[in-house]
């Protein structure tokens, strides 16, 4: 990602931000509120189109692609405020995640018996692996609008996994959770990265978690990148300490 500029009217949401996310990393983006973290993710997933700068994915320039095409390339994401399909069951939410992996259109789907059914069942097997992995078996057939916050967050991660992405962008997956739930999610993230082999880009406020699980950290402040490196480097970076961790860091 090179020289990204994004502004809304006179507000510079992102100013000359360049990142390099390696395959297989857990890459954390941190920064104070309003620093542009979510804007950055929205630019990667195609909800915002930066005025200047380019985004490359596997060597391909994707800056002008619309977001559904980026999803087809293998970029999935979760949202800070849960954005699930509230009227659908957990299973249907995950199946929708596999949308790009199913071919049958309106004709075959409407006839149902034959290719469409086979395809649905094949996807279902994969979806069940995800359900198993995230430990959401009991709520498989529940409508997600009725689920608790913690479950909804998990379903959202599952939905992103169902896309079988190469990169999964997570916007504060642990917001509003207690320590135990955070540990669960942290374990899921590590497994997603190690076992499923997906690159994870993570926005998180809990510094403990960030330092523990990420390989690389990027710090944003007022739309500018003020530091990038391994967690240890970030911890010792004076500009980061000043902007984010607090002036008198006791580390």
């Amino acid at each position: 990602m090179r020289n990204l500029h994004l502004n809304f009217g006179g507000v510079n949401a992102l100013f000359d931000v360049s990142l390099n996310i390696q395959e297989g990393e857990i890459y954390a983006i941190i920064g104070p509120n309003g620093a542009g973290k979510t804007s950055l993710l929205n630019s990667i997933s195609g909800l915002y189109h930066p005025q200047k700068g380019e985004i490359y994915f596997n060597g391909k320039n994707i800056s002008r692609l619309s977001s559904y095409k980026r999803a087809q390339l293998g970029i999935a994401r979760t949202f800070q405020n849960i954005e699930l399909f509230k009227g659908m069951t957990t299973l249907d939410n995950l199946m929708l995640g596999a949308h790009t992996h199913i071919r049958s259109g309106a004709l075959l789907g409407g006839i149902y018996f034959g290719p469409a059914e086979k395809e649905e069942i094949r996807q279902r097997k994969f979806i069940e692996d995800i359900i198993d992995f995230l430990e959401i078996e009991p709520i498989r057939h529940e409508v997600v609008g009725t689920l608790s916050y913690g479950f909804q967050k998990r379903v959202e991660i599952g939905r992103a996994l169902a896309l079988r992405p190469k990169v999964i962008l997570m916007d504060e997956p642990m917001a509003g959770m207690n320590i135990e739930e955070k540990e669960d999610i942290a374990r899921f993230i590590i497994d997603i990265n190690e076992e499923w082999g997906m690159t994870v880009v993570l926005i998180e406020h809990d510094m403990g978690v960030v330092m523990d699980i990420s390989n690389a950290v990027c710090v944003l402040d007022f739309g500018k990148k003020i530091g990038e490196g391994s967690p240890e480097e970030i911890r010792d970076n004076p500009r980061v300490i000043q902007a984010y961790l607090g002036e008198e860091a006791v580390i």
Partner: protein
Amino acid sequence: MNKLPAGLFNISYREDRQIFHTKFIRFWMVILLILIITGPFFLNGYLLSLADLTGIAIIGALGLNILTGMAGQISLGHGAFIGVGAYASALLTSRLGISFWLALPMAGFVAAAVGLFFGIPSLRIKGLYLAIATLASQVIIIFTIVHWRSLTNGTSGILVPSPNIGSFEFDTDRSFYYIIFGVLVLATLYARNLFRTRVGRAFIAIRDNDIAAEILGVNLFRYKLLAFFISSFYAGIAGSLWAHYITIITPEHFTMVVSINYLAMIIIGGLGSVLGSIYGAIFITLLPEFLRVIAGSLNGIFPDIGNALGALREIIFGLTVILFLIYEPNGLYHRWQMIKAYWKLWPFNY
């Protein structure tokens, strides 16, 4: 909510995806089918004509429910799309002499093409704004039909021939009943299957959260247009059936009142549910007849009630819709689910 009976264990994904889960339900579905097939031999002409009208209304309501209930795109132009189908079918058969059996799907495709065109604004606008845009389509289409006299014969309407196979004419309520219900069964199965596969899921996803749908790889524009296409196709089929059933069509058959009636059907029946469309269409089609029967039986007590009927019908119709919106916004379908769930748990429903 959608509870399965105790003791039923699905052991394959295929079983889990069935529409009818138990032998009990399958048995009653067969009974229902037999009743539908043999029905015309028990019903008198009046009831049969009601059944025919209801069948056509169900096909139209299914179409609108795919667009509005599933894909969440409010349409106030459904009546006009039905009109397009009716006129297309009428012109194809009476002017070009094409057989009804070919004209029926062709009318569907003509209406679908028109619906596709009027669906284009849906990419940019949604909710109320889209409703107004589709209202424009209603006005434009009816205006065109009324004023393009050389083609549509304006307000005086077109005479439409009855369908036939060889020398057998489908010109009675009873014979036409079978055409309508054949099409209806296919239309219902298609809609139900659409709901449980990829395209239907994408529609519901767009309704529930369009941004998240796009992030997951759903091409919004394409699927919204597809929803308009399928919905208008249903409308065209319903229109074609209507034209050949009534055998004379005029623009008054497809006014905005019709569009609103269809919207009322799916709201009362249940948005986004196939069964809901069926319940709603039955309810709205039979409501006026039901009111007429009541008025007739009250005639002895209130002699003038027959005269007040016209106004009364509109009022009760409006009142019903409002009451449904307040007390059962999820429609008859949801209420039926609740009743079923209650009895499944009874008497240990705690």
